[in-house]
């Protein structure tokens, strides 16, 4: 066991994925202006698994996740150094259009954010965007069913998406995200604004979703990671060089991370000694 893991030199032991990898994220550095937000993290996202990201506040979990579909490109000072391989294409390649990337790599946000449209239109939004030719209604219904919200809304598809409760809104957003059949679903603390019952429903949903999709999940809640994630990456904060730079400390099967972590820092974190 080493305590070297909170100094600037530490680089995590490489995680060897056991199945096929859908997003191979090799992050060397992520900068916002001159601020180095994340360094040296290799986090492969495996196919049909839930990959969890845990770590203290400010460790760059969300930054890492938002880099995976180039959402961070919307922030002007953002700079990415590294590569993210998606079907042998680097999504940060010169010719790649971030708009296209986001159609294959969907995202569910921390706060439920349905559009101010009807429930039906919310889910159909992505289909219409892509010029979907086919049975739109069938796709909408299927997405709502997969997101486990069909029974709640089947009688009021014309009502406003904003009229639903927080948990329902979040499941609506998940339905909206999966309606276009993305490959990967990025979920940025999707339960942090939800009550315990809604949280449980969304968690159960995530486990079901991995049948069809690959999920990357940022969570602040360690129990959630143990319940949902197959593989867990623990990110720490490195303050040795002045700023607060996030980096990968350890990545392994969730059970291993929580029961037999190899790094002292991971052990302290999963025991709840700091957060």
């Amino acid at each position, binding site marked *: 066991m080493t305590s070297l893991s909170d100094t600037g030199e530490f680089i995590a032991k490489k995680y060897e994925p056991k199945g096929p990898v859908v997003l191979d994220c090799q992050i060397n550095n992520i900068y916002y202006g001159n601020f180095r937000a994340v360094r040296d993290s290799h986090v492969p996202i495996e196919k049909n698994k839930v990959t969890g990201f845990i770590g203290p506040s400010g460790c760059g979990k969300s930054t890492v996740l938002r880099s995976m*579909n180039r*959402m961070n490109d*919307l922030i002007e000072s953002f700079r990415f150094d590294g590569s993210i391989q998606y079907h042998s294409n680097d999504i940060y390649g010169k010719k790649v259009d971030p*708009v*296209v*990337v*986001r*159609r294959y790599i*969907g*995202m569910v*946000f921390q*706060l439920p*954010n*349905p*559009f*101010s*449209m*009807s429930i039906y239109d919310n889910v159909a*939004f*992505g289909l219409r*965007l*892509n010029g979907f030719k086919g049975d739109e209604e069938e796709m909408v219904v299927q997405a709502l069913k997969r997101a486990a919200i069909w029974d709640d809304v089947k009688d009021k598809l014309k009502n*406003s*998406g*904003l*009229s639903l409760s927080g948990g329902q809104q979040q499941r609506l*957003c998940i339905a*909206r*995200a999966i309606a*276009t059949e993305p490959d990967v679903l990025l979920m940025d603390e999707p339960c942090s604004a939800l009550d315990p019952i809604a949280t449980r429903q969304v968690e159960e949903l995530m486990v079901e979703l991995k049948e069809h999709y690959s999920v990357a999940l940022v969570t602040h809640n360690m129990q959630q990671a143990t319940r949902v994630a197959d593989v867990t990456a623990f990110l720490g904060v490195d303050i040795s060089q002045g700023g607060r730079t996030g980096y990968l400390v350890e990545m392994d099967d969730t059970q291993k991370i929580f029961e037999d972590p190899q790094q002292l820092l991971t052990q302290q974190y999963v025991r709840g000694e700091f957060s």
Partner: protein
Amino acid sequence: MSEITQQLPPVVEFPSLEKDSFDIRAIKNSTLTLMVWGIAIMASIPLFSVIFMLISEGGSRIDIEALTEIPPAGFETGGGFGNAIIGTFVMVGIASLISIPFGIMAALHLAILDPNSKLTTISRFLAKVLTGFPSILAGVFVYAVIVITTGTYSAWAGGVALAVLMLPTVTLAAEEAMRQVPQRMKDAAYGMGCTRTQVIMQVVLPTGLPGILTGVILAVAGAAGESAPLLFTALFSNYYMAELAEPTASLSILIYNFSGMPFDNQIELAWAASLVLVVLVLFFNILARVVGRSKFKE
């Protein structure tokens, strides 16, 4: 003999929870509440007295004749202000056609495309200055630019003058409405693979639409009631308009002209026209409140 001290349970006095009207705070509270009510009623006296006066003075002259006939000359009886109603609608229409597209596009730039640049800060400041722009100067400006160059007073010139006044109102209201669209909704759209154009067309504009419409309608209501900018640009006419490039009547100028005349018939018509104008403006204001309600509320 042993001392037996009998310990009585301590007497607890509960505070009274009833209302004490003579408590100093209660007195202050009721005095201030009364004052606020009184002042609110006082503030609405002018509005209601104006409407009451317009109805009592002008209501009797409102009939089909007044709404459709052209103005009477001198000692004539009867007549109306149909041409002025048409003129007002036409000029406000021209002003809307100019100011609404430009205003909304300017608002898009201010709110979404480039919200923090120097150019934007300056434009926003100038738009705010323009909202307080004396309306007569808009008239003088358009007089110099259009009336002198074309050589005639016209509905065009009147419409452009009104557009100058509407533009900043539309721009600022639309900008505010677009700013109200939450960032997380835009994030959601970007996250689904929208281009910036799609985010604007499919999320920002539809979501901000009620607010944008409210601003537009209030600007229209304001323009309908303007008189100063029309004095130098559209002037007035006693006949129905035949083309856009000739002097054109409007309700506000008709009121101005007729109210100063020494003939009872014209003065009565001025009252009736005032009532029509107020009803028109009121209608637009109510419309603005109705469309301002979002269809998809939380």
